[in-house]
């Protein structure tokens, strides 16, 4: 079970979390009643740590392993319900990674480490975040008269949501959104027939502070620029978008340590990063994780703004 502990659920679920000690950033093993297992050990998702947990669990009496559960109907509703994707909307997963260049000048994923001087350093993994679009928003991508070559600008609220949230470098995890200083995002119809419409997306965004070498360690100096290229396909039979692929390459700068404690110290300045986006179905729990900046600790104001 994966849990954002700001959203622990209804009264029964909250009580379970308290009993299980499920809070903060960690892993815990428990029974369905909330009894802790391997309480004094640091748990990791490795068989070396999990095998003894299973043995401890199996040694418990049946009543402990399979306790009667409360009737969910008697629970008080959550104070803070988990936001759900908009009905009929699109769920896009974005990935963020540091990049480097190959000998032929192409972007490649860079291997970086948290605390690289530390012998116990660990590799920085590709990060991910979500982008939600309402039905009205994604439908605005499809021109009424979709002739090859026709060009349209993506509405400002969508453009700014993209660039400020999943268009930035968020490799250090919980970094807030950056305001968009300047951006473009255009859609060009490349193919249109009875089966559907194919669009090419071109975009460029300037976020946060402009680049200045001497501001490297100043607070509030974070900034980045990213260029986007994408392909979107609208399926006329299903009347849904069935492809939403966007790739971006960018540069980022400023005080990386402003919001976070996990450090990836980069030699290159400004450093380079990239983003890749794909459509997900929304059928699994991991697909329905709310976008980071939709939540109350987002900093870009309302997530779904209106306007053209």
């Amino acid at each position, binding site marked *: 079970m994966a849990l954002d502990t700001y959203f622990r659920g209804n009264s029964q679920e909250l009580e379970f979390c308290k009993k299980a000690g*499920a809070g903060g950033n960690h*892993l815990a093993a428990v029974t369905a009643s909330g009894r802790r297992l391997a309480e004094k050990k640091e748990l990791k*998702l490795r068989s070396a740590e999990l095998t003894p947990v299973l043995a401890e669990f199996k040694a418990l009496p049946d009543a402990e392993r399979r306790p009667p559960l409360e009737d969910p109907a008697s629970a008080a509703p959550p104070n803070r319900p988990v936001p759900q994707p908009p009905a009929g909307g699109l769920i896009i997963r974005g990935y963020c990674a540091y990049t480097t260049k190959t000998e032929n000048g192409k972007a490649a994923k860079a291997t970086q480490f948290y605390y690289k001087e530390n012998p116990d350093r660990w590799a920085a993994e590709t990060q991910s975040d979500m982008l939600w679009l309402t039905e009205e928003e994604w439908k605005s991508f499809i021109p009424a008269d979709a002739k090859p070559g026709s060009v349209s600008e993506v509405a400002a609220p969508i453009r700014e949501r993209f660039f400020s949230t999943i268009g930035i470098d968020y490799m250090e995890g*919980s970094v807030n959104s950056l305001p968009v200083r300047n951006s473009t995002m255009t859609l060009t119809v490349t193919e249109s027939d009875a089966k559907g419409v194919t669009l*090419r997306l071109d975009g460029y965004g300037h976020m946060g502070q402009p680049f200045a070498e001497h501001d490297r360690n100043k607070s509030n100096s974070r900034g980045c620029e990213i260029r986007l290229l994408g392909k979107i396909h609208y399926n006329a039979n299903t009347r849904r978008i069935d492809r939403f692929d966007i790739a*971006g*390459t*960018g540069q980022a700068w400023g005080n990386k340590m402003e919001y976070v404690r996990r450090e990836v110290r980069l030699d290159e300045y400004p450093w380079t990063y990239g983003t890749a986006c794909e459509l997900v179905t929304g059928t699994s*729990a991991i697909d329905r994780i709310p976008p980071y900046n939709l939540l109350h600790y987002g900093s870009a104001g309302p997530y779904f703004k209106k306007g053209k």
Partner: protein
Amino acid sequence: MLTAMKLNRITVCVVWIFAGGSFPAAGAEERVAAIPESDLQSLLETLKPQPRESPWREIEWVTNITEARRRAVAEDKPLVIFTAADGSPLGRT
């Protein structure tokens, strides 16, 4: 003394300003080069997580506590709870 070339430059500049032109906004210069269309697919594949990069992502996580507890009882299994305090551990955190 103004040369003919300088006068031409001034004229062009004056005409441009009266025609409503504006200098690019500060910071509007683009630092990042264009992405060739032929690179789109390889770039997408490069930037997404690589096989075995994050095996924990391949677990079918449950995010609803009531559902997880019900399944733990039905399947006679313990629960592993993966928590984060500033975002879902499955997202940006």
